[in-house]
């Protein structure tokens, strides 16, 4: 056990649409760093976050944060969610509908804690003027900022974000990423973010773990994972799929790459799972001009 690491070693059984799947994760995250977790849906990303939060107990395993043991199934210790000092931003925000923005934040305060942080956070998320509104009177982006601020009221050691930006448009995403980084600098928490957005991974994360079928298939810095080997002179383009038509031997894709609409003819085995709206990184090996899909 290391004092400045979040150590995760868990075994679990995932309930997926295709039946049960063994989940096995072994991961250590340096405290204060940002880890992005990505991978296809059903690969166990959300389950991993929920296990870290203590909302789900893995079948067996060990989780420790610094010198505190959060979970040890062998010793039968399982620290309840309430005591782990985490912040969790849920996919659907999970704001309390009957409380105003300010009340949503105040609810998170511990008994006897100073209330100054509430105004501070409301200012940071630029919602001090709308503090008396109920969540349903806010836009999606505003609700997202409230959820983020609420998760920070208790100054958590670990902030968990489950695809927090997936429902927002491009410019709002940028603003919120900026805000997340600002909070990260200010509060110094460890952060684990589930995301599909490559731009987001590069912008936010020190490390990225790619999950597939309940296992980590790749783990490293975003450049190590997504950029081709630095010795070769490969070029990587990032894009977003607009339309795709499947033919017997290839998939015809229209995509936005570097702000232009490009047409690509991709071999079937490289483009399986591709669908409109998904982001991808496309590596060109300049030598033989062969297109290869690095990640979907």
């Amino acid at each position, binding site marked *: 056990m290391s004092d400045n690491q979040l150590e995760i070693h868990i075994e679990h059984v995932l309930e997926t649409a295709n039946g049960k799947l063994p989940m096995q994760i072994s991961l250590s995250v340096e405290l204060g760093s940002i880890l992005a977790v990505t991978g296809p849906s059903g690969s166990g990303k959300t389950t991993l976050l929920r296990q870290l939060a203590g909302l789900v107990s893995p079948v067996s395993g060990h989780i420790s944060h610094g010198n505190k043991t959060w979970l040890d199934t062998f010793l039968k210790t399982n620290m309840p*969610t309430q005591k782990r000092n985490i912040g969790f931003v849920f996919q659907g925000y999970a704001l309390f509908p009957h409380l105003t923005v300010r009340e949503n934040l105040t609810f998170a305060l511990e008994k006897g804690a100073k209330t100054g942080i509430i105004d501070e956070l409301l200012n940071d998320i630029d919602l001090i003027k709308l503090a008396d509104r109920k969540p*349903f009177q806010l836009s999606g982006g505003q609700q997202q900022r409230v959820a983020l601020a609420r*998760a920070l009221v208790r100054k958590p050691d670990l902030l968990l974000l489950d695809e927090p930006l997936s429902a927002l448009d491009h410019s709002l995403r940028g603003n919120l990423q900026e805000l997340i980084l600002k909070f990260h600098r200010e509060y110094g928490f460890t952060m684990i973010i589930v995301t599909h957005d490559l731009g987001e991974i590069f912008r936010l994360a020190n490390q990225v773990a790619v999950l597939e079928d309940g296992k980590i298939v790749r783990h490293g810095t975003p450049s190590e994972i997504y950029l081709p080997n630095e010795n070769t002179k490969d070029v990587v383009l990032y894009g977003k799929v607009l339309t795709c038509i499947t033919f017997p031997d290839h998939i015809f894709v229209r995509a936005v790459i570097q702000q232009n609409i490009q047409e690509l003819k991709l071999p079937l085995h490289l483009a399986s799972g591709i669908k409109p709206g998904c982001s991808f990184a496309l590596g060109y090996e300049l030598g033989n001009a062969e297109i290869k899909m690095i990640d979907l």
Partner: protein
Amino acid sequence: MDWQPLLLTFKLASITSIILLVVALPVAYWLAFGKFKARGIVEAIIGMPLVLPPSVIGFYLLLAFSPSYWFGAWIEKMIGLRLVFSFPGLVIASIIYSLPFMVYPLRAGLQSLPVSLQEASYTLGKGKFETFYKILLPNCKPAVLTAFVLTFAHTVGEFGVVLMIGGNIPGVTKVASVAIYNEVEALNYTAANQYALVLFAITFSILLMVYSINNRLLRVRQPA
């Protein structure tokens, strides 16, 4: 017209509903979120008054409350209370008889809330009890109101159980439904009609009020 049976009816319904709300909240929470194997049995027992003839429940309660049997004898010895043919007995019988009308809507209301509300509260350091009364309950107000009113209305409409264990003692156990029956038996249709009409009007107004309030509560929650 003698107002006493009507007043007694509403007194019984109010007391029953209030006590039942307190009793049913933890039961509904447990049924909605608990992970216990015995859940099916508990659900079946709570639901029995929905399907059993009231006279069956009344008959067994009569035996249970009677001082000649151990439960009635024990209660009488412990707190000096005779439950059979008495108002406290009626209250206890009504609580049992109306239990599903309180528990089921509350459970449905709790279950309809997104699990993430509860989980968000836990991640903010709040325990189960605080989460329950500060987050879950306020967000299922329509369910609480519906449960309360259904229980109230069901108790107002009670007849078979009351007749079995309460009898017909004016001011003590003679509620409106029993009074109507008596008047009809005595071929006194005018008096029966008066009681019936008042019951009809009041229960209709209560239900109308509840549905109006519920519609307003639900509309408030819709996004603008």
